[in-house]
């Protein structure tokens, strides 16, 4: 695998981090919704994998503000992390934002940073 740390750090430098909440505000292995200047962002505390993810809260299928209330899990041998919308169970990769239920939707994903118990979401 080629990992180009330079590009990673460059991208990192252009990110503006905002304080979303404290770690314990998001249920373990579940999600919560963050209000960021009128934008709704779903944030997921994937305790089982010791990972955090953030995506738009809007499900593109029927335009419902619901992804933060969806169940998270993994798909396939590669264990791609995903979230399932509670309405019609369309699933989306938490990494790429692509819909895995055969539809052509992509949701926005955001980087997440943890520092001293606080959770930050990165906006580019």
């Amino acid at each position, binding site marked *: 695998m080629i990992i180009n740390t330079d590009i990673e750090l460059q991208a990192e430098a252009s990110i503006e981090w905002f304080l979303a909440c404290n770690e314990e505000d998001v249920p373990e292995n579940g*999600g919560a919704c963050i209000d960021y200047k*009128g934008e709704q962002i779903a944030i997921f505390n994937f305790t089982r994998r010791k990972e955090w993810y953030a995506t738009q809260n809007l499900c593109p299928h029927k*335009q419902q503000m619901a992804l933060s209330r969806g169940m998270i899990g993994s*798909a396939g041998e590669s264990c791609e992390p995903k979230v399932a919308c509670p309405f019609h169970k369309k699933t989306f990769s938490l990494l790429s934002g692509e819909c895995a239920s055969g539809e052509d939707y992509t949701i926005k994903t955001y980087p997440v940073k943890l*520092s001293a118990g606080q959770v930050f979401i990165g906006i580019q």
Partner: protein
Amino acid sequence: MLLNTEIIYYKSHIYILFDLNALKTENMTTTKPAVVIIGNGMVSYKFCEKLIAKSSNFEIIVFGEESRPAYDRVHLSEYFNGKSAEDLSMSPLTWYADNGIHLHLNDPVQEINREEKTVHTLKGINQHYDYLILATGSSAFVPDIPGVEKQGVFVYRTIEDLDLILAYAANAKEAAVIGGGLLGLEAAKALIDLGIKEPHVIEFAPRLMPRQIDQAGSKMLQMKLNELGLRIHLNKSTSRIGGEDKIDALHFADDTQIHVDMLIISAGIRPRDELAQLSGLKTGTRGGVVVNDYMQTSDESIFAIGECALHEGMIYGLVAPGYEMADVAVNTLCDSEKSFSGYDMSTKLKLIGIDVASFGDPFIAEPDCRSIVMDDSHKGVYKRINISNDGKHLLGGILVGDATSYNMLLQTVKNNIILPPNPEDLILGSRGESANDGSGAMSLPDDALICSCESVSKGAILHAVKEDHITTLDGIKKCTKAGTCCGGCVPMVKDLIAGSLKESGIYVKNVICEHFNYSRQELLDVIKINNVKIYDEALDHFGKGDGCETCKPVVASILSSLWNDVIVKQAPTQDSNDRYLANIQKGGTYSVVPRIPGGEITPDKLIILGQIAKKYALYTKITGGQRIDMFGAHVNDLPDIWEELIDAGFESGHAYGKALRTVKSCVGSTWCRFGLHDSVSFAIEIEERYRGIRAPHKIKGGVSGCVRECAEAQSKDFGIIATEKGWNLYICGNGGSKPQHAQLLASDIDKETCIKYIDRFLMFYIKTADPLTRTATWLNKMEGGLTYLKNVILNDSIEICGQLETEMQGLVDSFHCEWKEVVTNPELRKRFVHFVNAPEKKDPTVEFDTFRTQIKAKDWL
């Protein structure tokens, strides 16, 4: 440095890979031959799909006259039943872009210059081609009847046509369709869907669907269609359309007339060969672009496929042969050998819920064959099969009213299978012997075509199962495309999967999902034996990966069926409804349903429900289970609403869980003059006994005070009906999409026995059913069926009754109101917010419309 004390989750790897790819494609220069396709209908789309799958050596340019990318015309009528244009679309615009296809919509080609090899479009594009594909389809044929230009006269071909019809139908009362063929009847059905009562169907021929069925079949079909409210006129020729600017009548050659405000003409199709004619390509006298076996027109770099192509004097007005033509053209372009040699026009369809099918040669008659006919006007079934004079082969046939045997019959014709000694069994069903178990499909030869839309053979499906180990229907659809178009072959594909697994000695079990290789029953056993109490533990020991939306609720339901713990403590593994202890509704608000046992409620409690609904601006409705549902609650308000309900003596109704819903009751002997026993008291007792218990699916009960059955107990998972001597207990009934009557388990039993049997029955169901399986389906799938189940519950044949009763009593004793738990626990209450960083703020995107003085959720966008 940055990363030192912080953890960053970022998708950068994928980012870089994309970048490299982008660089690569940009540097590539293209000198590929240009394939230009005129028309972007179903066949054009299939051609593109097949061409890119086979080769990347072509530049593909498509011109479409319609404003939308190709859509599923076959299912066009579903546009009237709620499908959107987007739902019907074969693929979104991005698909074309992602595959490097240049698509120009709304831009019909107006001229082909064969010398310069260019096409010229309406918007002024001049496009060079190396190969040109005509996929222009056909248009509705409009006969030359005076008055066809009047307002209110429509054809039925495109989404635009349907939009116009939709708008006009709003003001129309009486309507007619000219044409009693397949499309005409479909249009008539659409008129009914649009609210037109008893539309007329006018057919020139002496029978309906003249291309598919015979006179007797047509009679049967006509009888059934009449029952459904169609007024059918045969042998009628329309001479004139009456009215000033707008249509107001149809006048016929026999001097009769009918009044109509709207007309759909569906009298056949006309191949769109106008461009071909203009450019001097050979066309048929009655329309169509003449093609050879390789789909080439009289100019070898120009091809025609789909409904515009005329092959051996034949226009194929169905999609499957069009797809086959697309495949042949793609193969020819890619220099592989494939030719078109005609196509079987067998069809099966459902017309307004009536099966109609014709296959092979439906019309061949004596003395060229012998026909066996079954004409049962009582059941409304007509079947005819034509067999060879030596009795050995099936040549074709017609089915009206019941086409379940269509697939097998069609395969018997196509594969020239030798008939059994009593060929009438083919349509009467073999009497006395057990039903077909899938061995039917397995006995076909390997080259039997199972999916004719995508031309997938039996061999290909078996190969996918045996060699590639694909064992699910979805998997087979993905890998072979079988069953993805009209879906008619799906039952056969399923039989083939099951059959070939059986053949290879593989034990077929319903595993929960990719994360747990167990059936629900097996998982319940291991969880119980190993005393597992939380989801992650189960996943670590018995599963793999990180779980998903399928296994999480299943395990959560097993855990609560076993230990009856507080649901909200394990909230995120619960289905969203269980997580918020309420049902999520359109728009993202929740509904609130307190328990009203047996449907009995005091005036004071009714008043309180009204006050609460008013205070929180909720929509109220009485449910089918005799309670009151309140809709439109913000997640933030849920704990407050429930606090007030609990203070007033209500408790959770578990409408959000896979659990007991209600036990419906009639008023019974306390008031009803027929009542034998007190059905309400019994219903309350039972509802309170089983409330809150989690199960593989929801459970409903009912109790009626006498045989008049006002509580509809026989449509419930368990139903109790009072008799002179006691109670009759029925089990495994179901309403919903597949209604099924409950079956009698025991009669004239007393209350205590009745409860004992229900304990055993429910617990056995909870322990052994697959996820999301109602009791009716559970019983239908059970080996040994009701006899076996009776033996288990009544005769303790597998010696578990004692255990079942103890386990059930354990669940009954550990009941708690889940909402009470939340309302009194500040930590749990905190979870009921929309924004964690702004707990007071409600979701600002929630909006309601007003509707009959209440609110309703905004429609889906």
